[in-house]
């Protein structure tokens, strides 16, 4: 693959940030899910968004990818304001949401083929890319089975294939490695590494510290809807494990009373 990531020709000159979030806020009823979040994702990096359950990671990704409208604040992806021009943003991004919303009554091959057509590719190119991706993702044998019959790992791979078909400039993944076996993780990781090597930016959320520590160049820790720590991995960790940095950033749980009855 020598082509450049899919960029919007009409977009303004690229800044250093692939993603820029400014004061992003989202409230659900009384709960403040994202609280004036600011974040810069450097272009061409592997960016990890970590945080405890309910920290606002998934909501932030939805607000950034045009899937959920913020109450206030701005999200700029690849120089384009997401909420001013959501379709222009969707042309240059790929998304693998946590709740993989796939057409489950299509086969793996059909899914990739139709996604490519919906993204405006011609049929020949759609078929070529679908076949290549199925081969790369090790889904060739299952290509003619319905997606609903796929395992969790296969579904993640199919969703990732659908998200990278158009060679996005920025790829967003929400918990991409959850319920995925090590073999599939490896395939997913290889694909993501190829994408970043080609100049794209990958942003993913996870609460699995080991994966984030191994993959990401830049990391942000989100807690209670805000970024509480961020930076290049080496600077952020400074010789420590990411898990320790994370616990320090979100505040360690106070020592609980012993459950004597469990040990007696």
């Amino acid at each position, binding site marked *: 693959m020598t082509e450049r990531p899919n960029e919007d020709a009409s977009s303004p000159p690229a800044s250093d940030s692939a993603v820029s979030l400014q004061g992003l806020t989202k409230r659900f009823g009384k709960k403040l899910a994202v609280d004036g979040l600011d974040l810069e994702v450097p272009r061409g990096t592997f960016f990890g968004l970590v945080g405890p359950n309910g920290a606002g990671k998934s909501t932030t990704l939805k607000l950034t990818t045009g899937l*959920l409208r913020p109450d206030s604040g701005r999200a700029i992806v690849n120089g384009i304001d997401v909420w001013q021009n959501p379709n222009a943003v969707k042309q240059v991004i790929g998304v693998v949401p946590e709740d993989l919303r796939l*057409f489950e009554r299509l086969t793996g091959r059909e899914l990739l083929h*139709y996604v490519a057509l919906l993204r405006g590719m011609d049929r020949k190119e759609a078929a070529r890319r679908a076949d290549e991706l199925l081969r790369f993702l090790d889904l060739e044998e299952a290509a003619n089975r319905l997606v609903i019959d796929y395992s969790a790992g296969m579904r993640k791979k199919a969703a990732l294939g659908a998200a990278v078909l158009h060679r996005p400039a920025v790829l967003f993944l929400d918990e991409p490695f959850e319920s995925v076996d090590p073999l599939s993780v490896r395939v997913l990781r290889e694909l993501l590494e190829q994408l970043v090597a080609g100049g794209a930016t990958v942003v993913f959320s996870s609460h699995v510290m080991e994966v984030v520590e191994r993959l990401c160049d830049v990391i942000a820790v989100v807690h209670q809807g805000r970024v509480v720590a961020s930076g290049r991995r080496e600077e952020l960790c400074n010789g420590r494990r990411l898990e320790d940095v994370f616990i320090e950033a979100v505040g360690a749980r106070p020592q609980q009373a012993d459950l004597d009855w469990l040990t007696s």
Partner: protein
Amino acid sequence: MISIFVRLKLRLLRNVLRTSHGLGVVAFTVLALGAGATIGLFANSTSDTDRVIFSPVFGGILVITWLVGPILFGASDETIDTTRLALYPLDGDRLATGLAVSGLIGPGPIAAAVALAGVASRAPSIPSALLAAVAIAATLTLATVNSRLLLTALGSSLRKRRTRDLATVAAGLVVGALGAASQILSATSDSINRATVATIADVVRLTPIGWSSDALGRASTGELLVPILELIATMALISLLVRLWGRVLSRALTEVTEADESNEVGTSMIRADAQPGFDNPLRVILRKERRYFSRHPRYRLQVVSQLTVLIVGGAPFLGAVVQGDKAAVLLGSIPGLTAGVTGSNLLGPDGRSLWAEVVAMPSLTPLLRGRSLAFAFLGFVGAFIITLGSAIWTGGWQYFLPALACAIGMALTGSGVGSFTSVVAPALYPDDGSPNPFATSTPGSGCFTAVFTFTGVGIGLVLIVPILIGMAGARDEAWVRLALLPFAPTYGFVIWWLTTRAAGKRANRKQPELITQLAKAA
């Protein structure tokens, strides 16, 4: 882009035929096409004047049914689930246009087209026939676009349980009103008055929902100018609606991905009563039903709506009552059977909590028995009210107690069969944040459930034949009326016991499949 949506829809439908729901889709399609062909043949056999009357009335009914049917009865075609398109750069107009055209493919629209083709086939010339064909397409497009626009616009409200309950009550009222109207009409006149229908047609053809179908009727008689004008107006209206739908859709797709806290779908039905190791699960379920009724607005609304259907809509004897036939009191028991329809999806509304029920209870049989008894009770109450009312009206008190006995038998039979249907074809109340609150990720599941529900009703009707025979005898014979008192409840109880036992056994055997089916995120 339109061709992509059409191909996608065809591919999804084709793939559904490869699954367990395929048979349901085929059966539903055959039924729908049969109904469409029957109406089409009738329309084809009418005179020019009658077709001009029939066409706008039928077209108007079609558009209104498409519009309110999904809201009132909780089902719509969402083969192409729009939430699955939210990730792609499709502007609202393109999305709405593609969905509108692909929405014309499916058992419902095709059956409707077949029915309307009966009118078109009488067109005297090729231009008239072409015009008629365009009119059919316009009528169906208007119906689907109207319906989807309304569902998308009301999406966030309809996902709230309270609004859905109100819709259920409205459904009860609509069914009830239609049932009562048809019964009283058939009792008070020999046939539906043609002049009345002509008056209705005159009104409908002046409204937007009647323009295209009126064009169809007129085109079938050879008229050209008026139909062309009506179709131009309809096209303009459709174009406006599609644009509006596109805007609403774009907005809805970015607002609905978070669960509504007020929606209680998925809350365990026995949460407050569940205790590990409780010894009488049936008692717990019944207590829970009672508690729901006293405290839970949702349950009260459900009860009220079902009673409305049972009392007013399920009264095939109103005509006899109006005519003062004392034996009509006996027929007052028949609404009891409708417990089988209302109770044919016992696991669906709270389906996502099924795993909790399974953990809390040693077997699903008591759960099914408790719920089906509650529905049988509802059926009986409905029958009691109508039986009492008709006895007061006609003075046929000698039939009152036998009618109550029959009502118990029918309610038990109906709810027993309903419990089995609940296990064979459970339908999850969709609650996945889609703009269409009735969307499912399983195209064809609605057809599947409908076929099984209708089959269940058919089986229920066959099973109550002994009671019906008794009722026929009870009209003239006092001893038969006496014999019915122990026979009907006992017979109903035996059927209920056997069917709920079979349903429970199947549910216990198929627990993993049921949980997967009902707890699956759409």
